């Protein structure tokens, strides 16, 4: 049976001795079971493959900042040339950045900043995403009406920043009322149940639902459709996952906020290679969010 | 010294102990007698602080004692040997014996050599040869019982409540225990003793209190009683000779065991059992009797040898095979291998033969209820209702239920491992006649019993085991206790 174990290992390829000039990138992804991050990570992997002389080790932090720090420590002992970090948290992933810098390994942050700046940052500010989404709501409602907000897992950076962005808009439009807000932990089924309950509790008192991501927006959408009151409620999410885009195109979902996963992924690899080859690299590459509505959907569908 | 004053106890509305007053004097052996379910264990548990009384109180050295837990009672000097064996399976023998009274150093760290020494001393006092470093789970039932006794002796208590301490013991250990009791008595220790073995009572007791249906019938000096009178008090009627007449067996061989071996437990065991015959396996504790019958029931298959049943060889991998062939068994380890504690009495009884009350895969509740009712009556099992969880029944009644379970399946060969353990004298008589009834109806019984009189009067033949081998096969009609013991003793 030990033999069986050994053969299990031999199935995996040995990390070959590195050829001179080859660049090894370590990439720690926030959570590969989340669709958006998975898309971004896939872009990183695929894009790195197209570059000659580049190796990549990808690991998944499964939303645990502690684990992510461990992974950066592993990268340091693996002696990678450069690290791409897709941080789990703004604060809690900071030591990961500090560790890498202390070890003299350049580090690129993607999609989320940390307290300590990396050598480069590719991405967008989640506060903007919340802001853009709520602005769209405000515009649709003419600055007046009841809104429900569905949070992601409480206390995560994305949830906090998207909420902050949304709150800015509420402050701007006194007529906009936050009727209720509640977490559905990024989960579609939970968002669906939550929305069903809200339909009972706040019937007629809300005209829009803003969900912190598209999964939850889809859940809210399904609940509203089932109750037959979708036409009275404006629903918007963030991320522009495939299903959400389709729903926007079909006119079911009103809008989503596009975050360029592929662009961020590719950008981070480019930055990493520049840093690894000690070439100058721009400190920040902000890829803006875009509001996706049925009117401008076509280019996003691909 | 210790006094029970108008003690009473209810369980969920059922009064188990009517207001009862008894006093126990220093240095006496006070026997508590009564049928199964009379309330003996309950009374003892109240005295030991395990149950809080619902009425009355306990007086200890002249002051009212209000024991909130066994811990309080132990501190006051009252220890108890429980009827239900309570080993901690994954601690060692020494740790079990000293549990709750470990010899400790200055920082509550355990002094292991002292602990071991203490255990050795206590076991020696009981003349038991058990290695103190063994894990409790590797012990036989009898050895476990010895450890329980040692545990209570080790508390240096002024009162020791002994609830059927000899139920699982064989003659040798019983004798050792009695010697130990004599020494305790000489030191002024009070012993409260419960048993269903009549001879023990008159050997030991100074005074006897009799309980019937939770009520004290009376207390009198042992010298004023004789077995017949005592039984009359306990049962409320007279009991004729409890051993029924044996009929000669048939010639038809039902079971033939040859060269059955599973080292190191037993080897080369061969014997035959005819229809209509009762054969007893005798031997000292650890002689391997339980292991041999376990193999015939498929509980722990032998490694070599042959079992022929009804003329055909049997391969037994588990009890299902045995049951399918027509072999039933009542195991010795009631708690571990018998009871399903949370199931009701009735469901425990029908468990093995459930198929008989089924239409297809579905249970016919009516038929089941009828069968249960008749069995409960037949075996005089005392319970509030057939759905009462069996764990709540008194020890003897649990044993009767298991016997009923085994017989419900109507097996041809019935293996009984210590079947009358903890059973009162009246019920014993019923079981004995049931055993003869089985033999008469052309079935066969393989009996393991540590009570030699029982084995001698019930069985046609006695197979004596010594250290896992057959030492002799005796004709019960001509053999006596000395002969059996002589063969059973290691040379």
């Amino acid at each position: 049976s030990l033999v069986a174990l050994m053969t299990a290992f031999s199935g995996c390829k040995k990390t070959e001795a590195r050829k001179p000039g080859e660049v090894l990138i370590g990439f720690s992804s926030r959570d590969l079971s989340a669709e958006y991050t998975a898309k971004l990570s896939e872009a990183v992997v695929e894009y790195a493959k197209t570059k000659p002389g580049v190796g990549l080790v990808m690991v998944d932090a499964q939303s645990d900042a502690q684990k992510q720090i461990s992974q950066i420590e592993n990268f340091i002992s693996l002696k990678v040339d450069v690290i791409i970090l897709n941080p789990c948290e703004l604060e809690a992933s900071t030591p990961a950045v500090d560790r890498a810098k202390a070890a003299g390994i350049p580090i690129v942050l993607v999609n989320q900043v940390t307290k300590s700046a990396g050598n480069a940052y590719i991405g967008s500010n989640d506060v903007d995403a919340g802001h853009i989404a709520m602005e769209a709501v405000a515009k649709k409602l003419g600055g007046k009406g009841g809104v429900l907000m569905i949070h992601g897992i409480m206390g995560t950076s994305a949830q906090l920043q998207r909420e902050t962005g949304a709150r800015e808009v509420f402050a701007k439009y006194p007529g906009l009322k936050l009727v209720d807000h509640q977490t559905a932990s990024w989960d579609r089924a939970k968002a669906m149940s939550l929305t069903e309950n809200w339909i009972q509790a706040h019937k007629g008192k809300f005209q829009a639902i803003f969900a912190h991501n598209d999964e939850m927006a889809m859940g809210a959408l399904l609940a509203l459709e089932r109750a037959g009151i979708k036409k009275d409620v404006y629903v918007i999410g963030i991320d522009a996952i495939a299903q959400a885009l389709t729903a926007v195109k079909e006119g079911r979902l009103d809008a989503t906020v596009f975050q360029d996963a592929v662009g961020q992924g590719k950008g981070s690899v480019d930055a990493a290679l520049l840093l690894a080859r000690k070439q100058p690299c721009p400190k920040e590459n902000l890829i803006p969010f875009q509001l996706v509505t049925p009117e401008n959907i076509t280019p996003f569908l691909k | 010294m210790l006094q029970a004053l108008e003690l009473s106890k209810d369980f969920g509305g059922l009064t188990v102990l009517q207001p009862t007053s008894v006093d126990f004097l220093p240095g006496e052996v006070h026997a508590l007698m009564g049928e199964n379910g009379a309330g003996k264990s309950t009374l003892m548990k109240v005295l030991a602080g395990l149950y809080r009384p619902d009425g009355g109180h306990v007086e200890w050295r002249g002051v009212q004692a209000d024991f909130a837990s066994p811990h309080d009672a132990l501190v006051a000097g009252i220890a108890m040997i429980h009827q239900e064996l309570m080993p901690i399976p994954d601690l060692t023998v020494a740790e079990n014996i000293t549990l709750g009274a470990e010899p400790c150093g200055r920082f509550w760290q355990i002094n292991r050599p002292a602990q071991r020494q203490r255990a050795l001393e206590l076991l020696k006092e009981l003349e038991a040869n058990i290695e103190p470093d063994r894990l409790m789970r590797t012990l036989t039932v009898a050895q476990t019982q010895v450890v329980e006794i040692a545990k209570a002796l080790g508390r240096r208590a002024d009162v020791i409540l002994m609830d059927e301490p000899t139920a699982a013991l064989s003659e040798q250990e019983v004798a050792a225990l009695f010697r130990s009791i004599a020494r305790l008595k000489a030191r002024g220790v009070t012993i409260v003793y419960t048993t269903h073995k009549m001879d023990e009572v008159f050997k030991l007791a100074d005074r006897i209190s009799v309980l019937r249906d939770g009520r004290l019938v009376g207390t009198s000096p042992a010298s004023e009683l004789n077995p017949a009178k005592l039984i009359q008090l306990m049962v409320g009627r007279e009991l004729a000779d409890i051993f029924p007449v044996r009929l000669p067996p048939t010639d038809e061989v039902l079971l033939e065991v040859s060269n059955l071996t599973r080292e190191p437990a037993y080897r080369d065991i061969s014997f035959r059992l005819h229809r209509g015959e009762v054969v007893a396996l005798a031997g000292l504790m650890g002689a391997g009797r339980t292991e041999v019958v376990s193999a015939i029931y498929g509980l722990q298959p032998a490694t070599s040898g042959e079992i022929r049943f009804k003329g055909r060889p049997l391969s037994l991998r588990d009890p299902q095979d045995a049951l399918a062939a027509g072999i039933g068994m009542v195991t010795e380890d009631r708690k571990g291998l018998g009871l399903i504690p949370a199931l009701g009495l009735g469901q425990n009884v029908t468990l093995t033969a459930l198929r008989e009350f089924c239409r297809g895969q579905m249970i016919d509740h009516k038929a089941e209820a009828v069968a249960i009712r008749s069995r409960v009556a037949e075996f005089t099992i005392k319970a509030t209702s057939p759905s009462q969880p069996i764990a709540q029944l008194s020890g003897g009644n649990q044993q009767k239920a298991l016997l009923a379970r085994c017989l419900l399946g109507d097996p041809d060969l019935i293996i009984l491992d210590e079947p009358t353990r903890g059973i009162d004298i009246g019920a014993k008589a019923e079981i004995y006649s049931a055993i003869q009834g089985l033999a008469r109806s052309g079935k066969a019984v393989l009996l393991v019993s540590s009570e030699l009189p029982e084995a001698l009067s019930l069985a046609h033949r006695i197979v004596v085991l010594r250290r896992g081998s057959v030492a002799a096969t005796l004709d019960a009609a001509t053999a006596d206790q000395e002969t059996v013991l002589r063969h059973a003793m290691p040379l």
Partner: protein
Amino acid sequence: MPALDRHLLHRFGLLLVILAVGLGLSFVTDTFLSVANLTNVARQVSINGILAVGVTFVLLTAGVDLSLGSVVALSGVACATFAHPGDHTVFIPIAVGLLTGAACGLVNGVLVTRGGVAPFIVTLGMMTIARGLALIFSGGRPVANMSSELTSLAGDFLGVPIPVLCFASVATGAWFFLRNFRLGRHIYAVGGNENAARAAGVPVERVKLFAYGLCGLLTGLAGVVLAARITTGQPNAGQAYELDAIAAVVIGGTSLAGGVGTITGTLLGVLLIGEINNGLDLMGVSSYFQAVIKGVIIVGAVWLDRRQSRS
């Protein structure tokens, strides 16, 4: 039916808590007691309910199944993969979902019975394995584009939500089975005292295998229902569902040590959890406090219930 009576009395404390919470909610909110909302509650509890019924069997044998949530996801993904419009009749994806669940359950059962590995470890292993497989099969993306026949499984039938019908029939069947079938009795016996059950001729291994397999099958059903409800096979769905399901069962009086418990108890447990979730949402309690209140009510309910049944 004395057993039933005894049981309802036993769980009387729990029933009281459920009614008290319900009464409180119908005072505080004006929607709780509406037909529409009670239908909601029923719909929302049905997935947890199906899982809870399944895991009741496993818990009764003194086992545990931590893989529920992941297997829900895996079955959902498997079902959705075969449910694209025009691909197959609706029975195929349903069968695929159910069988996936049952297969996982059987693997659990075999490892527990033949392998002798503790159920906690086996099902913890299955938890990560099934999650991994769900992600692998789906490529980490939700499997969307499900046929409307399948998603209509989350709709209504004669005004009653189909998930609720599923749950109701599963619960009724399980209740009937445990009471009236020999195998049902054997499950209690195995959980009550495995060695004694074996000595009494109960086929312990087969009984356990059945319990795990059935639990897996029902988990598969929950996966299909969930996929229909959220119109996707979501590889990361069902996170921590096992905790809610086991909690419901244990609240309902089933012992983790096995051998004790009933489906009616499980139903009450499921209802209590569903009621709390719905009620707190209706009252608009902030999600931080929701967590605290939910914990307190659950512990409190069990505490009351046990006090009640002791006296």
